[in-house]
């Protein structure tokens, strides 16, 4: 099961070709920072991604392969537990 960290529409790009999402939509906004690797997208289209920048409530990121993501750490993690 894939766990989406950052809900996003992967059709949407800015003028640089970066994808965009709202920071406030993130499952855990505190985990967001430039350079962070996470899963972005939706159930029908998701990707590993690296955050390029965070400006106001917007997160700019680019898609990477699972192989590249694995170089940053394990890809399988326990699901977060409800508080």
């Amino acid at each position, binding site marked *: 099961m*894939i766990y989406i960290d950052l809900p996003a*529409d*992967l*059709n*949407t*790009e*800015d*003028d*640089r*070709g970066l994808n*965009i999402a*709202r920071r406030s939509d993130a499952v855990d906004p505190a985990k967001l920072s430039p350079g962070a690797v996470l899963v972005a*997208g*939706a*159930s*029908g*289209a*998701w*990707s*590993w991604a690296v955050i390029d920048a965070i400006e*106001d409530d*917007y997160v700019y990121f680019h*898609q990477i*392969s*699972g192989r590249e993501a694995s170089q940053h750490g394990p*890809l*399988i993690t326990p699901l977060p537990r409800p508080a």
Partner: protein
Amino acid sequence: MTRTRLRRVEPTPAPDQVVLRGLLGAAGLDSAELRQAAGLNHDLYGFYGVSVWLTDGAHPAETLERTKLVKFDRYVQFVVADLTARELELWATGMSPQYDVVHGQDDLDRLVEELRAAPHQVRLNPQVDREEH
């Protein structure tokens, strides 16, 4: 504060050109998803727009399936004339071949309604890369 959106100077898309948009979930052209996408665009750039990809000689559907749409299981396909016949416009925004579908009066409700009502076909992406682990 809204940002300035780059609008490319390009010829108006031909009526028979095809535009594609990746589907986010199983619901097809879902109203809530389209509203959310258009709303994000509005908050960023000051107008309601839904991102699509315009096919042409340099960007045929087969190429877009393995590039811009490579993470999408399914995508929806429109013909330009079917959009422009419904008060919708195609703006060349950002980097080619991205376009935004917008309503002529920047009406969010009409944008979503007309886009969903326009003739379209849902297609499976044979080149999808799901990278399941």
